[in-house]
């Protein structure tokens, strides 16, 4: 009997230790991934609100690598870009750098292109099941539980921002599951934003990218856009994109 009690004591002590370590590490993790001042933390019991509209301002002239580090950060965060069986044309690309050279002036620049998080997203309009959806806070993403893999959103997206998963995948990121037969794209790192953190690509290029609430006139991004502007790719489509560029 005393032996059993001894076991119990040891077990409880070990459990206490694990719990304490877990709590401590939680605190540490929280401290390490400090919430960004640009992304106010939303209490978990509060729904996403349309009072907020997340957006991004990318200063192309300050991107020394044309956005390559942003693309790498996105790959690391979401685990795309190296699907073993897919051909190069079948590889998913949530984000890529595009080199643009004006035919007349020969002026050239490189910029990162991904989902532009339109206010009026064509991909959401065409999706038959509503899997392609825009959250109240402006984040456009795919509900992978009801995506049937018809790829109509890929046909509709003016920015070629979406990819289809062509094969079974293993070793996926816990926070960013990818599924065979569904469509995927940049979701502004919704899992990070919900925790008050910046999207991975923004963290990778802090000198050139501002992330924040476009609806808040006092936010850093709103102030910067008011002072400097913020161009859209294919502004002629009147989609009012959440991703804006300086230096286009």
């Amino acid at each position, binding site marked *: 009997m005393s032996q059993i009690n001894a076991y119990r004591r040891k077990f409880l002590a070990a459990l206490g230790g694990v719990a304490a370590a877990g709590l401590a590490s939680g605190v540490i993790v929280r401290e390490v991934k400090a919430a960004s001042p640009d992304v106010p933390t939303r209490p978990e019991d509060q729904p996403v609100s349309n009072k907020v509209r997340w957006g991004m301002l990318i200063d192309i002239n300050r991107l020394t690598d044309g956005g390559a580090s942003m693309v790498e950060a996105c790959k690391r965060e979401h685990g795309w870009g190296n699907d073993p*069986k897919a051909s190069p*044309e079948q590889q998913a690309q949530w984000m890529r*750098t*595009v080199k643009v*050279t004006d*035919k007349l002036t020969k002026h050239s620049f490189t910029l990162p292109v991904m989902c532009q998080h339109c206010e009026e997203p064509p991909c959401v309009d065409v999706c038959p099941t509503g899997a392609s959806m825009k959250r109240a806070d402006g984040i456009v993403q795919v509900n992978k539980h009801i995506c049937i893999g018809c790829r*109509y959103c890929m046909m509709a997206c*003016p920015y070629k921002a979406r990819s*289809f998963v062509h094969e079974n995948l293993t070793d996926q990121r816990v926070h960013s599951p990818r599924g065979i*037969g569904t469509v995927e794209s940049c979701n502004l790192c919704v899992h990070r934003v919900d925790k008050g953190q910046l999207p991975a690509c923004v963290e990778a290029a802090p000198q050139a990218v501002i992330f924040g609430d476009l609806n808040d006139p006092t936010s850093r991004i709103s102030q910067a856009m008011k002072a400097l502007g913020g161009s859209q790719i294919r502004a002629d489509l009147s989609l009012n994109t959440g991703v804006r560029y300086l230096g286009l």
Partner: protein
Amino acid sequence: MSSKTMIYSELRASKAYYFLLASCLAVVGLGAISFLHLEHEGHYVTGMNNQVVWGLPHVFAIFLIVAASGALNVASIGTVFRKSLYQPMGGLSALLAIALLIGGLAILVLDLGHADRLMIAMTHYNFKSIFAWNIILYNGFLALCILYIWTMQDRKMKAFYPYAGFFAFSWRLILTLGTGSIFGFLVARSYYNSAIMAPLFIAMSFALGLAVFIILLFFTYRLDKRELGDLVLNRLRYLLAIFVAAAMFLELARHLTALYITQRHGIEQFILLDGGIYTLLFWIGQVLIGGLIPLSLIFCRALKNNHWSLLLAASLVIVGGLVQLYVIIVGGQVYPLELFPNAEVESSFFDGSISSYTPSRWEWMLGLGGVGLALALFFVGMVVLRFLPKSLADSSVEDS
């Protein structure tokens, strides 16, 4: 229906019939194998990719769906426009419409990334999506065709025959409008974004549906040794010519409009001039083989009453229709999206470059499997119910 007494009977299930049915089912089997392979492995085994997201299966599927609505026209002309010559063929026309639609939908569904989620497509609707509307339109079309056949075959339901015919005809026009609008509503793609896609698809459906109907009618009557006269065949012959010409006319208007819009010069130059295989397919496949040669065959005086020239014309219309859909669906996608006008672009995601697409054998198998399914359903339907007039000889049909 026709004032002359027309006798209908089931198709005789001869040895040749069973051979035909078995051949169709073998092709369906190939389609099933392809589906299982795609479901198990994923779409990396196909030629489709993230630049060309819709490929050969969609060409076959949309061909069958468009032809389905067109196949019903023979019945509609009999009922809605009261042309008694067409009335005896009404049941056959509605049966073919059902069979073709099921074949086409089967391909479309089995090519989905998640075919297992069909129930979600049936229960989650985004009503702003023309795709969602099409799901309703396709199901409604099947139901209306069945109702239409019922009013033709059951004396007690005869009073509803004109109404069923009218609703089915209206529904089929809206259905093809919806199919064309799948492309017409794509705002960002310069080869598609146009309201003319809807009437173009309607004209195509008239031509393709009738071409399929003519060929199947002819060979079914041969198979069962029934009489099929020049009166019926010649009427269908000239009707086919009108539909082919209408489809060509709308295609011409589409390209002329695009040629007037500077923004679209790039894609037009690609398709019409320097697009390699796509240019070849457009001029040789679509315009010459699918349009000019069939029209010449139909209007050539020396070939009047020549059944084989009509069959050849109808076959060429089918080939041309498949090519036209290939040029529209694949050609429209291989040309890059224009994110930055007046600029040259390059990226790791093939921005600014012409994509390549080669259909894999799995896509051929899936596409042909749908065709096999449509034919098998058609052949089974004719044995089960009395769709076929005993004779369509000139003396049996009433000219109007």
